[in-house]
């Protein structure tokens, strides 16, 4: 809740109109709701998932090059820095909507075509997976903007401001909106199949750094695989609890592995057997098939649930962040395409990959250094 003082100030700013953004910046009253935009790495990756997501797939207008991309990144970075700190965007016509950023993060990335503008970085499209039924309308784009926040007003406002910025430079191809269940006790939020989703994830920033953050030319950047996966909830609903738990290899109540353990953070034991000698976590279950031999996270999963308002279908906007998609994500997706009991109720309908820029220090903008442009 904004205090009266912030509302008053915002009112004054609103009166000032466009000039507002030139005023002294608002000092954020709710420091906990501000996640710094500038830094070595972009926010919104290792950030604990906020309640709402808007993912924008954007194509650069034809014939635009590194300079145009740089200009767009400059405009975007400037407004993202303002909005995430609770200040209105430049030329913000609704500055009140920027007062409480509600943990807003804005994260920028580029698709395989634009990585060619950056030396030393290559990003290959994903190979075809046998289970895919991809729709063109959720396909690869030149650019991605991931906006996340705990409040839909601030999120929607930021979305609109950034889309305004790209006039003449980019074309919006798709928008993927999602939601995440935030919990108070550190447990993972549930997906629309009722499962705790996100248990095995790189939580220890130091230990798992190399899983997520790239090195070399893309140091402090990362790579993102976006998979739009529809859930067939009508047939999933016909399964009893035992069958649902069997399919994943974990309990629905608390996410504990079927091999035992007190909660979702207990290590699944793929060798534990029942009285007949069969594995308690079935070898074809989602956990058994997706798990690595190393018994630990393989990349960062930061998924959001979606409901498609036009036709009522729903599913998961699966997002995997990895320092090397080909080495970390592709083998897992390959295994799941070969066999995964869950495949019966899921269908990948969209797919795209992006290189997520390294962060920019204060006073700089995202992508400038990598594009080799002057300050």
């Amino acid at each position: 809740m904004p205090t009266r003082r912030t509302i008053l100030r915002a009112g004054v700013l609103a009166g000032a109109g466009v000039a507002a953004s030139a005023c002294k910046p608002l000092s954020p009253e709710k420091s906990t709701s501000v996640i710094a935009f500038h830094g070595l790495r972009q926010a919104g990756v290792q950030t604990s998932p906020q309640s709402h997501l808007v993912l924008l797939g954007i194509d650069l207008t034809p014939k635009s090059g590194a300079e145009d991309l740089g200009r767009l990144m400059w405009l975007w970075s400037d407004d993202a820095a303002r909005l995430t700190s609770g200040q209105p965007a430049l030329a913000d016509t609704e500055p009140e909507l920027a007062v409480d950023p509600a943990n807003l993060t804005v994260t920028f990335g580029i698709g395989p075509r634009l990585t060619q503008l950056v030396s030393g970085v290559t990003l290959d499209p994903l190979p075809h997976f046998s289970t895919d039924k991809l729709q063109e309308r959720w396909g690869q784009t030149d650019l991605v903007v991931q906006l996340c926040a705990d409040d839909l007003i601030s999120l929607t406002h930021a979305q609109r401001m950034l889309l305004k910025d790209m006039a003449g430079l980019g074309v919006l191809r798709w928008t993927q909106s999602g939601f995440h269940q935030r919990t108070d006790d550190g447990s993972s939020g549930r997906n629309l199949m009722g499962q705790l989703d996100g248990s095995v994830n790189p939580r220890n920033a130091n230990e798992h750094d190399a899983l997520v953050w790239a090195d070399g030319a893309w140091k402090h950047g990362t790579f993102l695989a976006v998979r739009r996966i529809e859930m067939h909830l009508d047939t999933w609903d016909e399964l009893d609890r035992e069958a649902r738990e069997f399919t994943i290899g974990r309990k629905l109540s608390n996410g504990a592995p079927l091999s035992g353990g007190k909660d979702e953070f207990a290590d699944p034991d793929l060798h534990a057997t029942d009285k007949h000698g069969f594995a308690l976590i079935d070898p074809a279950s989602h956990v058994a098939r997706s798990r690595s031999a190393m018994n630990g996270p393989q990349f960062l999963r930061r998924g959001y649930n979606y409901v498609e308002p036009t036709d009522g279908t729903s599913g998961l906007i699966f997002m995997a962040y990895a320092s090397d998609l080909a080495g970390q994500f592709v083998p897992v997706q390959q295994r799941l395409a070969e066999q995964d009991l869950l495949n019966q109720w899921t269908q990948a309908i969209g797919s795209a990959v992006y290189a997520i820029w390294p962060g920019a220090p204060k006073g700089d903008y995202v992508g400038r250094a990598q594009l080799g442009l002057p300050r």
Partner: protein
Amino acid sequence: MKALSASAPRAIARLAACLLMIAVGVVASLPLPAQAHVLLLRSDPADGSVLKEAPTRAVFEFNQPLAPTAYVILTGPDGPLTTGPVKVQAKTLTLTLPKVTDGRYRLAYRVISASGHPLTNSISYVVGKIAPRTMKQPPRERSPDWIAATGVGAVVLLGIGAGWFVVRRKRQRQTGSPQ
């Protein structure tokens, strides 16, 4: 004092009747094999059969079409044995069995119905003439049968208890002496 002691048996009888209804409810709500569940209809060899010669293959027939994922574990007097690959076709699971000596065998199976319901169980059979108990029996586990049996037991006991109170109350009314 008197009124209190006279109404106490009635209260207990009411409580017993109440508990009886709850118990009936619990038993009625126990999971029963629903339509969606996959069940073994028959197997060859049949469960508990005694065979003169070792079977060369096993066939399981279920009430529903199966998913391609299925597993078996064959255990004999000397431990686990390797079987041929498991073949799933429609509602049937087939596999070839290895040559074995006389003894008691257990063939455990796990199948998944095409709709996604798993079923894990086992059959056992004897090949040739054998002394009883040549194979270790798996430890018995608490099964829904056990829970159901306890539920039925509780209902019967409660029923007897309630009946006893009713009879007792009647008798007390007739004799006019509450205690």
